[in-house]
């Protein structure tokens, strides 16, 4: 039988703030355990939460970017459950009146078609602490630095049908929140975590199957693996006559499988009620308009503008806008070197290649946009060859203080392009390689490449390969 998967995602985005959502504790990553857990985060008796004003503009900006309704009056609720990393015994979240309602995004599928994914809601809430189960033999260690970190939970409709679509959607949300400055988007520090709701049904069916929820997946690769594992597992269960249990599962990247978390005999009842310690939060049209006027250009708009302004391909534009830091860098380089295609090519291939290789943050590119622009201008005016330019980029990468023009002059890297200095070299190479010359005469024209390579080596890459190619051909014919 052919099966169809129905997938919905809940994405928890950590909002980029200095302090927590309800306390003045710092949100800085990597601090010693419990050094950023205040009395409010610990749920000590008598403390009261006070809402951080920075969380609202971020949630509103996200809502506006997906065309959602923004609630003028939103209310916090208590979600009650017991777990050691939740000291108060409840999480403050938004149930009945979330800040963002509805909206949708368009994701690009293979082949360039767009698919709309509807968003149900997005609400503000606090994160819980972290439980360390493996540090001590008979105890669990609790670090409450994360308790109270502001989150925006974005809930999608079950509009995705494959793991690939789910990943495309998650990537799009990641890109969006990074662009908007809503989140730093740092996945390795837990700034974006996904819960995947997956069920399957016979292809073309209309009834939903029983779903499972795989929690806390923190990379796109794991998300794809976890969903594919769940689809296969559920298909195997159903095809062998079993039935799916509605349950929470955990993805184990080491074994590439999802596992049932100890299932609770009684269905969880969170006993939501309005948070009595907080008043409703009111925002007006003026507040929303102000945020709207300050919103940056969004990735899709930027990509389209890059395509038309710099005459580059859609594929190049999409890659360049994938991270706002890279997009800004690209535009800064084009201010110096106006050849958009050349700049796009260098940023996409050379720069991103190096960034990936060194695993550095996109924001921390060691070569300034100005120096790269100057370097590319020297290729364009044929001062240096592309090969030499790549060597210089390597130098700039490790010594950012180097000035491109000075470096070219001091190391005599200017391209050798006058025929009179190249011709003796060509004659010499031809004389040293009579066998290859003979091969050429017999019709093996590919050996020209061999000669060009020899001459490039003799000039330490300073010759212009096209010109050498022409001169060699002229000599041989």
């Amino acid at each position: 039988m052919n099966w169809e998967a129905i997938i919905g995602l809940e994405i928890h985005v950590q909002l980029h703030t200095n302090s927590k959502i309800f306390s003045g504790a710092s949100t800085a990553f990597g601090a010693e355990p419990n050094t950023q857990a205040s009395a409010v985060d610990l749920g000590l008796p008598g403390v009261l939460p006070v809402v951080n004003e920075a969380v609202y503009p971020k949630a509103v900006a996200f809502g506006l970017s997906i065309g959602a309704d923004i609630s003028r009056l939103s209310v916090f609720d208590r979600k009650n459950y017991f777990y050691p990393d939740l000291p108060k015994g409840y999480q403050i979240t938004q149930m009945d009146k979330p800040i963002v309602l509805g909206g949708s995004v368009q994701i690009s599928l293979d082949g360039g078609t767009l698919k709309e994914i509807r968003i149900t809601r997005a609400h503000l809430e606090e994160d819980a602490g972290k439980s360390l189960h493996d540090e001590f033999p008979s105890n669990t260690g609790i670090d409450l630095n994360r308790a109270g970190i502001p989150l925006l939970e974005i809930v999608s409709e079950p509009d995705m049908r494959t793991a690939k679509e789910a990943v495309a959607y998650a990537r799009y949300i990641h890109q969006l929140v990074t662009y908007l400055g809503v989140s730093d988007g740092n996945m390795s520090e837990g700034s974006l975590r996904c819960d995947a709701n997956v069920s399957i049904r016979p292809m073309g069916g209309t009834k939903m199957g029983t779903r499972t929820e795989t929690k806390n997946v923190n990379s796109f690769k794991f998300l794809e693996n976890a969903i594919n594992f769940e689809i296969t597992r559920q298909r195997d269960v159903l095809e062998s006559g079993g039935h799916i249990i509605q349950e929470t599962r955990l993805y184990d990247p080491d074994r590439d499988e999802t596992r049932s978390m100890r299932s609770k005999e009684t269905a969880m009842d969170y006993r939501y009620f309005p948070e009595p310690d907080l008043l409703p939060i009111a925002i007006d049209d003026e507040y929303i308009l102000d945020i709207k006027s300050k919103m940056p250009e969004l990735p899709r708009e930027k990509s389209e503008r890059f395509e038309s302004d710099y005459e580059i391909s859609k594929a190049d534009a999409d890659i360049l806008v994938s991270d706002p830091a890279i997009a800004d860098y690209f535009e800064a380089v084009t201010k110096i070197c106006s050849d958009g295609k050349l700049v796009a090519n260098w940023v996409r291939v050379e720069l991103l290649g190096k960034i990936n290789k060194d695993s550095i943050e996109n924001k921390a590119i060691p070569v300034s946009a100005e120096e790269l622009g100057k370097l590319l201008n020297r290729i364009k005016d044929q001062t240096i060859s592309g090969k030499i330019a790549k060597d210089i980029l390597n130098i700039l990468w490790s010594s950012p203080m180097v000035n491109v023009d000075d470096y070219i002059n001091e190391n005599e890297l200017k391209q050798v392009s006058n025929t009179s200095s190249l011709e003796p070299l060509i004659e010499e190479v031809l004389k040293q390689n009579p066998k290859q010359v003979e091969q050429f005469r017999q019709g093996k024209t590919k050996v020209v490449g061999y000669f060009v390579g020899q001459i490039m080596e003799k000039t330490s890459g300073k010759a212009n390969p096209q010109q050498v190619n022409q001169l060699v051909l002229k000599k041989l014919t």
Partner: protein
Amino acid sequence: MKIEDYIVENIAELTQLKFSPGELSSIGNKMSEILELVEDMQTVDTTGVEPMSNPLDATQILRPDIATSENRRDVYQRSAPETRDGLYLVPKVID
């Protein structure tokens, strides 16, 4: 609505309270009385009355996004039964 013993047992589990079997029916009766009070209240005509989430006619005052708390871990951990390497220790949690 009558609160049966099984409902009391379920709520007791959610709230991590322990009752002896003998207590269940008397607790159930008390809870039923509270619900009867709510049922009485529901007979009041509330047409045109806006639901509220808080009795105060006010909205929340917000706090500037500045990290103001100092690290007081030592003070807080003094009242914890067990700590190690800066972590609060609790009995092993499996799930």
